[in-house]
């Protein structure tokens, strides 16, 4: 393996799965790992509880030189506990310069815990990473997304959680080669660690997760009540979009909490984001600021959202939305029919 102190020697990616396949974030992390390694190696990825050649070859095609497979099962055990046990198994034999973790509900807990267990430095919620003079430089939003800090991490390994869409995945290359290593681990002791007694997954009737929607129609405090969301749903249905919400709307109980977009909710990157009655606080923009274009509808002409939006309508959504929905129906009926998967973003 070539050595070059200006590049990391070894990056380990935490391979979170989604419905049995690597999540899009894991593919992005593998791409990021390869770019940081810049010819150095290896890029490895750890997966839990699942193996099979389909999965491991998908990870290798996405950039992994080595796939570690641990036998653990995180269904009943608390997820970060079982991942920590698996990581313990991997880190006993390899010493990567960097551990990359997706900034998910799992990663946001796992990474700091791992850092304290190893005595390593960690940066959470990063949106850009670089390797300079043998160290990781992590850029991350802070102060509710109003500012960015750059942190230098000087431990080996350095640990970072990375936000979705911060980095592009590699083009899948089925001719890439890599090896698969099965590791042993001691499962966490369920008497002394938390155990999961029930898990409820959010199932949206339209089946498209917010994160993958091409159009998102989001509502905030300005809707004035839960009724506003039915108007948003009509608009979303008309243009193949998915409904989301600001933190305030979720906290007020106007919609399911899983609809929340922002710093402590989901990050979405649709090509069109329609923000209705959303003031545009930084912590909300944290979740939608990278949308292709924002159309803001707000009765307050001074709302911060108009500084972020490409198109703005100052006015009462109750008057504008019904008309917009009607006219969209007419507009759509005049358009040639397109493929059925138009609502899913292509990336």
């Amino acid at each position, binding site marked *: 393996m070539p050595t070059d102190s200006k590049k990391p020697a070894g990056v380990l990616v935490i391979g979170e799965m989604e419905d049995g396949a690597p999540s899009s974030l894991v593919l992005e992390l593998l791409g990021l790992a390869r770019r940081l390694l810049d010819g150095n190696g290896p890029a490895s990825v750890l997966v839990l509880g699942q193996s099979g050649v389909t999965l491991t070859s998908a990870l290798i095609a996405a950039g992994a030189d080595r796939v570690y497979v641990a036998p653990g099962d995180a269904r009943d055990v*608390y997820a970060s506990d079982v991942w920590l046990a698996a990581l313990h198994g991997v880190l006993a034999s390899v010493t990567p310069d960097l551990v990359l973790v997706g900034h*998910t*509900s799992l990663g*946001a*807990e796992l990474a*700091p*815990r791992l*850092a*304290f267990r190893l005595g*390593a430095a*960690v*940066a*959470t*919620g990063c949106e850009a990473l670089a390797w300079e003079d043998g160290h990781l430089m992590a*850029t*991350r939003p*802070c*102060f*509710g997304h109003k*500012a*960015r800090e*750059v942190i*230098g*991490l*000087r*431990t080996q390994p350095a640990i970072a959680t990375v936000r979705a869409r911060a980095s592009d995945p590699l083009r899948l290359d089925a001719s890439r080669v890599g090896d698969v290593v099965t590791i042993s681990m001691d499962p966490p002791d369920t008497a*002394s660690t*938390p*155990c*999961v*007694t029930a*898990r*409820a*997954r959010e199932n949206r009737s339209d089946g498209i*997760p917010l994160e993958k929607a091409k159009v998102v129609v989001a509502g905030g405090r300005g809707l004035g009540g839960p009724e506003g969301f039915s108007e948003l749903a009509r608009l979303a249905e008309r243009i193949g979009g998915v409904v989301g919400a600001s933190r305030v709307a*979720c*906290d007020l109980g106007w919609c399911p*909490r*899983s609809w929340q977009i922002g*710093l*402590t909710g989901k990050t979405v990157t649709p090509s*069109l984001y329609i923000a209705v009655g959303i003031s545009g*606080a930084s*912590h909300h923009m944290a979740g939608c600021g990278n949308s*292709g*274009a924002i159309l*803001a509808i707000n009765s307050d002409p001074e709302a*911060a959202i*108009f500084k972020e*939006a*490409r*198109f*703005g*309508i*100052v006015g009462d959504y109750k*008057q504008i939305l019904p*008309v*917009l929905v009607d006219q*969209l129906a007419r*507009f759509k009926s005049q358009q040639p029919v397109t493929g059925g998967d138009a609502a899913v973003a292509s990336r």
Partner: protein
Amino acid sequence: MRILVCIKSIQNPEIAASVFRVDEARKEVIPLDGLPLVTSPFDEQAIEAALRIRDRGQECRISVISFGPASSKAAIKRALSMGADDAIQVMDTGLEQADSATTARVLAKVIQHAGPFDLILAGRQAADWDAGIVGCGIAELLHMPIVTFAYALEVTGARVVVERVLDDGTETVEAPMPCVVTISNELGEPRKATLKETMRAAKKPIEVATAESADVDSSKLRAEQEHMRARVGLYVPRKESKCDLISGATAEEIARQAISKLAASKLI
């Protein structure tokens, strides 16, 4: 049972981006004149979570702990006015530049001296640096289990049942106590201080702890922090606002224009 809530006093996170400024050379946020510090909102919800446990009939002593400048006392007073019983204020001039990891190390030491606690609560992250490291650090350093992103808690015997937020739903987790739980905003609004509780709060004890009283070698911690991690930049990203405001005499006219503009940009 004993519950400890970790709180942080921060600059108001709700201040508008238009007046938010940083000192890039010092890598610090420039405080707004006359604007008082607030309790980090997630930490306020952690206090609320503790009080709700007591509201349901659990006998408990609720303590708060805050590590920061002397001005953190206002946040402590607010917590006592909400209903907490006593407080520990951790201050040390030798640790003013403490980062999240150092903060966790200091708090863990003080907690060891002040404990034992059955339940340690903290906000999911402080609303200034938004890192979410301290709660996890305290759990690891004290060898306690942790459950993060909680929006509901219930104590049953020696265990706590926590409902927590996941990316694609929720889960219910049962953890043995002592343990650490971090609270997410989905918990709901914290209560306001009542006049009666505020009057009582004046008499509630606030213990002051320092690095020395907690057997913390502040110069060693400082050196270790420098060795591990350093902030090398802080800036406000520049944004150019170029919003195309769509106006018209009627809603029909506005909608027509909006559709034609979105269609022209191939957005619909």
